[in-house]
């Protein structure tokens, strides 16, 4: 039953490829728009992205190092989220922390997707020795805990954002690679691929222009999930003191807060935890919504 359906679907795809795939995305987009939660989640992601961009370009929160009041001032209208030990604005620190979190998330997700998709597609499409090698490689690679990897990078490059991004990116591509490999194996013998071969399409063309667009929804969902995983990991690493060093990070804010709580200073913890909570939740919700909208198997359910 299922095989007939998919065969039918792929037939359609191969016949009127452009129009049909466009309508798939269109369909996804319109169903996303109908999903209120997804829209809200997406607007939060956008908001964070804009804030991060603004902070990155120095438009907002560039003077986070400035003393704005006494140390540990409680939140008031004057000091929106209170101040930290040096009298710096916690709100600005949280915003600057957003920049770090989004940067790490984006970079990690991009890196992980680039590696995961490339290797997964190659392994699945070519099979044989290449597949064996890549499978061996990722199983071996995935046995390295990311903290170890991070330590290695920190040792070579010094602790900081770059090391965190590299370590997280290089240790998070394996699951996507597995998924893509499996999907490509399923797709490569489908009729639309044979059709592409019949009209003279080479390996590259078949793989990247025909098969990949059909598995790309997985990539998008994964992007969203890797993004929030990276944000969480960055916070944990910075909390432990092996992550971001110079810039404010939510993790470092929580690290400072754990001592400050003893003197009743809760705002730093609250700001960082809330900022992280919202973005992680937004990405998770968005990931779910994307999956609902993009996965052809869930269509109509």
């Amino acid at each position: 039953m299922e095989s007939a359906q998919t065969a039918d679907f792929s037939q359609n795809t191969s016949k009127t490829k452009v129009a049909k795939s466009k309508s798939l995305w269109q369909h996804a987009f319109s169903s996303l728009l109908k999903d209120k939660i997804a829209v809200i989640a997406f607007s939060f992601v956008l908001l964070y992205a804009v804030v991060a961009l603004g902070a990155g370009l120095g438009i907002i929160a560039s003077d986070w190092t400035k003393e704005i009041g006494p140390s540990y001032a409680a939140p008031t209208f004057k000091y929106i989220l209170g101040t930290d030990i040096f009298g710096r604005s916690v709100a600005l620190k949280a915003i600057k922390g957003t920049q770090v979190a989004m940067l790490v998330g984006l970079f990690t997700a991009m890196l992980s997707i680039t590696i995961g998709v490339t290797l997964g597609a190659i392994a699945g499409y070519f099979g044989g020795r290449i597949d064996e090698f890549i499978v061996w490689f990722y199983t071996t690679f995935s046995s390295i805990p990311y903290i170890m990897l991070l330590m290695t990078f920190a040792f070579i490059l010094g602790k900081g954002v770059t090391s965190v991004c590299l370590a997280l990116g290089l240790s998070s591509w394996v699951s996507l690679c597995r998924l893509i490999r499996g999907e490509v194996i399923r797709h490569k013998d489908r009729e639309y691929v044979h059709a592409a071969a019949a009209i003279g399409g080479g390996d590259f063309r078949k793989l990247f222009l025909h098969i990949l667009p059909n598995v790309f929804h997985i990539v998008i969902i994964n992007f969203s999930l890797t993004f929030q995983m990276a944000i969480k990991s960055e916070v944990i690493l910075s909390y432990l003191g092996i992550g971001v060093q110079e810039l404010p990070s939510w993790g470092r804010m929580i690290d400072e807060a754990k001592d400050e709580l003893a003197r009743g200073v809760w705002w730093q913890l609250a700001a960082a935890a809330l900022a992280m909570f919202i973005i992680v939740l937004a990405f998770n919700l968005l990931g779910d919504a994307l999956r609902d909208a993009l996965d052809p198997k869930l269509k109509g359910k």
Partner: protein
Amino acid sequence: MKNITTLLTVFAFILGIGGCTKKVDVKERVLNLAVGSKIKGMDPIYANDRYSSNEVGRVYEGLLEYHYLKRPYTLVPNLAEAMPAVSADGLTYTFKVKKGVYFHDDKAFTDGKGRELVAEDFVYSIKRLADPKLQSLGWWVLDGKIKGLNEWRKKNSALPKVNYDEVVEGVKALDRYTVQFKLSKSFPQFLYSLAMTFTFATAREVVEHYGKEFLNHPVGTGAFVLPEFKQSNKIIYTKNPKFRKKLYPSEASEEFKQKGYLADAGKQLPLVDKVVVHIMVEAQPRWLNFQKGNIDYLGIPKDNFASTITPSKTLTPEQKKKGLILSITPSLDITYMAFNNDSDLFKNIKLRRAMSLAYDVNKSNELFYNGTGLPAQSVVPPGIAGNIKGYVNPYRGTDVAKAKALLVEAGYPEGKGLPAITYDISVSTVARQMGEFFKKQMKEIGINIKVQANPWPELQKKVDTRKVMMYGMAWGADYPDAENFLQLLYGPNKPPGPNGSGFNNEEFNRLYKVASLMQDTPERTALYEKMNRMIAEEMPVIWGLHRQDYVLYQGWLKNYIRSDFETGQVQYLNMDIEKKKALLSKF
């Protein structure tokens, strides 16, 4: 069966944490201490930091120790029978070693029974401190001071194997129980050095049996035994069952007499059965454990200060209700941010002064020490001769305008042309905040600081291997003499000696050499003051604070006194188990 019991115990323990009633084991007196840093190892010759030297001091002993109940600090015999006979020229010291002192049982000895301590053990231990192959971290204490020892060291550094059997004139065993030291020159602090862990007695067969692993197999003569040392979060010492007859002192300074510190006078030491040292790097776990009664005494973390101490420096009622006792004592120490004076960059005195001027020590005192510290003007803390009363260092912060002007003179207007300066600190939230504070202050004059956090043993290693530009450190007195602070900046004491800053000033070195040979006289004090002032304005490091210790201890802990020389202190501590039971029920 045994496994099941263990499992049940573990379960009971886990449940016990959640429960509110605590069971106090009445049969055993267990002392619980908290240490804020990892321990490097248990070898006396490497114990150059307070943390490892305290641990070493629980197992090992030396010829002398500080009288537990006397202030000013007074040396008394420990493994020595009596204070030494000193020759007329003050260069020969003859000690009688106590008879009937045995090393802890260990498989390194024949039949596994600890052998008796003899004079030769001290000869061996001193030679080991000088061993050129071992790179001991305490060699600076005796460097150039004992007749023939430097020559022995030099000769053996070229040999494939160090020859311990060669007799060195300056440190000889005259008979089984007599050890004689001959100094090559006057060294008034010599006796103090015999109360430092570096010179404590180790047994040759144990060292040779364990080789490199000796670091993890402490076998001494002390009141406590540590079967094996592992890098874990708990170090458990048990009472040495064969400890010699050593009694709690029956004499005390007036202040301690009045406070009832003589209640245990004449009792056999140690007074507790077990000592558990908990390694807790972060302040809050230490504090919460202390507040739950799991730790017997603790310095108050900065963030808990406000909720514990009232503005009039007494305990809050809530803490008093728990039976806690507060002890406030100035400590003989100094915190500082050191420059690596070996680097060309910091040979520039104007740069050093500019940075010092930009650093706000009062703010740092307020932020990190709740205003309890005393801003240091130079290296010698108040309380010992050599400290200059009323002296104010002209190159102390904060004077940003002056700092900026000096920076221009130094050749780096607005910090231009300066590389990013790394500032190494140990790893903990507070240390990181201090690093950030420093970075922030330097930014005001345009200097870019990069803060790097390292685990404590690694930080020390970095300093010793000169892989630092700047680093934060504190120095606590090894003995109550300004010389112990001035030597921090004596050129030849460069790492692995204690002069991590690598500061090397000919005039200062010359004066130091003169002063270090002098007995305690007004002339020497004058010279100390002169050196102290000179070094102050040279700014080899940025002076921080002389700290004050705010220690809280539990109502059941007895005989606790905050001391600058904590080595061996645990043997005198006692506890009232019944009181612990009663007090814990109120927690």
